[in-house]
């Protein structure tokens, strides 16, 4: 990863090149009238271990007439063709 200085004019004219650089992990210091005004950097994806599988939200078994075995679920599903 490297940091490149780039003027606002260059950013306008070379946006595809900058986007490609960002995709490679480069960072850019945006310069306007000889002053750094912003930093452009790629958004890092969250580490997968931070992504939680939530699930839940329903209480099907508690209200079902019989155990929700895979066989019973399959039997229920076939009723959509009846």
């Amino acid at each position: 990863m490297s940091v490149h200085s780039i003027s606002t004019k260059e950013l306008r004219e070379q946006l595809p090149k900058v986007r490609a650089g960002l995709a490679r992990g480069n960072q850019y210091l945006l310069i306007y009238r000889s002053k750094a005004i912003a930093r452009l950097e790629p958004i890092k994806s969250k580490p997968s271990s931070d992504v939680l599988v939530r699930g839940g939200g329903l209480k099907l078994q508690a209200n079902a007439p019989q155990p929700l075995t895979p066989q019973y679920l399959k039997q229920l599903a076939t009723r959509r063709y009846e």
Partner: protein
Amino acid sequence: MNSQASVFIDANTFIYFLDETAQQHGSTITALQKLVDKQTELYTSHHVIEEVLFIVAKLATAQAVTIAIERIAELPGLLLVEPDTDLTFARRYVKLWQKSKVGINDALLLQLMIDANIKHLFSYDETFAKQAIKFGITSIDVQ
């Protein structure tokens, strides 16, 4: 598509994922979390989703169906695999159905997995899982 890191999720797995009163709920969440942590590509199809929503509608309220689809949509990285938009797909799964002991519905799902080169299945349906092995598709270890 990396076949080693692709898993197809069956309808019963989604039901246990959603149903916090199901005996299999905890093991399903744990197994899905492990797959997500390993950055496994999770696949299903609209056909499976429709089956899940039908079951939820049969067992619960219309509001529960909305909750179900929203919770499924939150499953990290879940992708939908769908057949070609012509009838050659149907011809293929009919042939598969004729040479296997699965129903038409499961034949369709197996054909989807075969076409997408998905080599792993997450299903609690042992009969389906046994048939899938014949087509080179193995079940993931839920333990």
